[in-house]
């Protein structure tokens, strides 16, 4: 093993009432790709915030050694100066600025009193080459896809002579191609002498790329595994992460014969007048009572748009085609109409447009169906607490009380609140858009269990997911969406990852 570039020794960090990190040690060798895994709330992000100086020296106990020297970072500026760059899942780019402005933002190249724009563009171009991104640096960041924005962010880090690059769940929002591309880039940078730390929930990619894996659980280092010795494997990682073995991550369910058709879409077309593009073209599909239908496809293929266009069309697309609920043609003009017709939609972006983060658990759960707990327009707050507590218990939402503000919950528990909210409207059809994105293995397993229970009780679920194993593991049938069309339909028995990818990329 090479000499360590980073040693974090006996790091302990407490928040009021919670020990987030307890005596954690973390060592990264120079020139390796080191993966950091653990369930949500295991302390990965806290550890990285300690390292980057977000929690300044003195806020935690323990030592940080970077390149052999003890470091006392008082802020991000200090850690950046030392050569540590962190790229968060929520990108820190300015959408309205160009790529080259973004890359040199914060350490602009000066000429006299102003900025040396020619040199800026040249340097940005050089950095874009290093991340192998072939775009015009004059492009505005908002015009790039998420995958490319991520690369711009890495280019920005490289322009600061980074020695240790930390990526916090970089692939969570990326499609397969962009993922591959990013992982390939990390290997490439490794050759250039850049050490990377990758935080990820996607164990397959961890296994693919890691030289070393450190597992955190409940704020403690559980183990550090060496890939070259063959210590890294999916079952091993899951076992260490959750502290128990999950043999079948997709729980079994009774698969009876599907019932009558509850939702049908015929020749569905959507046109986005604001952006002037066709979003959906001639989409037709059926959903039967008591089945889970998976919608696979690449990011941006039109799956979310399809769900929203059915769910009352809040984005105001121009729609053509037929929508039948339980055999009857309907026109749903707003999410309110859709909810009344028995359709619910849990969004992919639970923080952005799913939950109201500043409100508490009970208010979020009851929001879409306040009528249930009110008389003559007046909310019965006791009935509300009772109802919310029932859902909290049924879905095993980990929170001290239903009065807890949602922003304080972990990602997995927020997702459960989002599901609880839509169960509270007692729908016949539930659209789940990326129901397990960014949540840990244990919570995923629980969400799958909940989905199974719901369909056994006769609900029908449409699951939109970018994780193919999940689509294969949970669905009865799979539709593959590509460029706003249904590219194919596969019964789960015939579906494989390869077949789906082939159709999705067609």
């Amino acid at each position, binding site marked *: 093993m090479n000499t360590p570039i980073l040693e974090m020794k006996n790091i302990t960090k407490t928040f009021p009432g919670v020990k987030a990190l307890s005596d954690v040690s973390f060592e990264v060798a120079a020139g390796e790709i080191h993966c950091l895994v653990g369930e949500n709330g295991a302390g990965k992000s806290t550890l990285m915030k300690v390292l980057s100086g977000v929690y300044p020296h003195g806020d935690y106990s323990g030592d940080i050694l970077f390149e052999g020297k003890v470091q006392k970072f008082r802020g991000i500026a200090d850690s950046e100066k030392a050569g540590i760059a962190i790229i968060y899942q929520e990108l820190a780019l300015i959408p309205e600025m160009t790529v080259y402005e973004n890359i040199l933002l914060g350490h602009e190249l000066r000429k006299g009193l102003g900025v040396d724009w020619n040199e800026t563009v040249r340097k940005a171009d050089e950095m874009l080459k290093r991340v192998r991104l072939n775009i015009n640096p004059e492009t505005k960041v908002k015009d790039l896809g998420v995958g490319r924005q991520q690369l711009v962010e890495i280019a920005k880090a490289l322009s600061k002579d980074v020695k240790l690059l930390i990526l916090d769940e970089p692939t969570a929002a990326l499609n397969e191609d962009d993922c591959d591309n990013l992982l390939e880039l990390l290997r490439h940078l490794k050759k250039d002498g850049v050490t990377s730390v990758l935080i990820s929930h996607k164990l397959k990619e961890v296994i693919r790329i890691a030289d070393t894996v450190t597992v955190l659980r409940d704020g403690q280092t559980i183990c550090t595994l060496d890939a070259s010795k063959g210590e890294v494997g999916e079952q091993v990682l899951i076992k260490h992460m959750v502290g128990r073995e999950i043999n079948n991550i997709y729980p079994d369910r009774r698969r009876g014969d599907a019932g009558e058709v509850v939702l049908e879409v015929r020749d569905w077309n959507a046109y986005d007048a604001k952006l002037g593009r066709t979003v959906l073209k001639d989409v037709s599909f059926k959903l039967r009572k008591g089945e889970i239908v998976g919608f696979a496809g690449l990011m941006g293929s039109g799956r979310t748009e399809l769900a929203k266009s059915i769910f009352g069309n809040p984005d105001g697309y121009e729609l053509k085609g037929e929508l039948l609920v339980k055999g009857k043609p309907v026109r749903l003009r707003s999410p309110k109409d859709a*909810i009344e017709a028995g359709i619910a939609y849990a969004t992919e972006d639970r923080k952005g*447009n799913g939950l109201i983060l500043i409100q508490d658990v009970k208010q979020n759960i009851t929001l879409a169906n306040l009528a249930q707990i009110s008389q003559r327009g007046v909310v019965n707050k006791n009935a509300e607490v009772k109802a919310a507590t029932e859902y909290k218990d049924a879905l095993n939402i980990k929170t001290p009380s239903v009065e807890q503000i949602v922003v304080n919950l972990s990602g997995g528990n927020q997702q459960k609140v989002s599901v609880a909210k839509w169960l509270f409207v007692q729908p016949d059809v539930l659209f789940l858009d990326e129901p397990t994105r960014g949540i840990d293995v244990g919570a995923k397993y629980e969400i799958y269990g909940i989905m199974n229970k719901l369909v056994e009780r006769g609900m029908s679920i449409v699951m939109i997911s970018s994780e193919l194993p999940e689509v294969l593991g949970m669905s009865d049938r799979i539709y593959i969406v590509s460029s706003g069309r249904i590219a194919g339909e596969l019964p789960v028995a015939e579906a494989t990852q390869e077949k789906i990818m082939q159709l999705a990329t067609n």
Partner: protein
Amino acid sequence: MTVKDLQKAVRQNIRDYGMYIALIIIMAIFTIATKGIFISSRNIANLLNQTGYIAVLAVGMTLVIIIRHIDLSVGFLSGFLGAIAAVALVNWHLNVWLTLVLVLVLGILAGLLTALPVAKLGIPSFVASLAGWLIYRGALLMVTSSTGTIIIPDKIFNAIGNAYIPDIMPADTTFLHGLHKLTLLIGLLAIVWFIFREIGARKSKQAYNFEVPPADMFVLKLVFMAIVLGLITWVLAGYNGMSWTVVIMIAVVLIFDYIAKQTVLGRHIYAVGGNPEAAELSGISVKKITFMVFGAMGLLTALSGILFASRLQSATPTGGTLFELDCIAAAYIGGVSAAGGVGKITGSLVGALVYMSLMNGMNLMGTDISLQYVIRGAVLAAAVIFDVTTRKVRR
């Protein structure tokens, strides 16, 4: 109940009650500085009458800010609607009740008009209402251009801003000499109503098997609130009793507080403020809520215009000047958040009282007007800083 529990309770509630404490401190300071004149029944009655038209506006503005908007047009709209009332009474010889209804309806329409470009086209409310500010300023000047200030002779109309509720017994009886009996009676009824409501809420919580505060804490709270209500009643009864302005102000605060806290509509308003997209996807029409909130703002603006014109017994070409900024300041002092989704109706009343106490108290002390502005600005800044910092340590 230990000292530690009490400390914890204080920490958790400091944000909710911070403004009440600030109000009490400000009133205490002025009482000492004016050798008791400030707290005299006569001055408190005067202070409450001054606060009326700003408090009513602050209630509406709080709702507007909760849904992440602002309404700059309310100042001159209030002046303009006051002038319309004057014209209706003086020139058109309209019945006073008809005039009131007309002005209130016009207020709602004006509010809906401001909401139209905001809700339908997504125009920022700052711009839409700035246009309204200019338009209503012009309209006010137009209405008053020929006559200048319009004197209102109507007794009923002028009573709204100046008169006090009648008494059931003459004040100079030996029984409770010099006190306003009906005000005392209303205060007593309010205390009884409050106690019954609290006991009812506690019982219904127990019926659900929810945890309730310990009985001694509960009784302590009841006693404390009864004393506060009793003191307010006593002070008010010491002068002419409750004014009609105070009655209107309290009614507005109670009604809007009830809507905000207890009703589905209120919950929808907070949801739209907390996350408009999530609210829309939860089946709430953001447009409808925007119209309703601006409509309510318009209604309260009209009410404020009536209160102000009635108080002056006239409509002037400069009526309503800077009301919009005064009520925005009051709303922020009362704890509303510009980020949306946070704020209380009772907070806006306290904010308005803090703001007007400063003005009233400094006037009594003869403080120079230039210094008054500086101090009011400092208090606004302090209130917002307090709000932001206490929000951070809430967990």
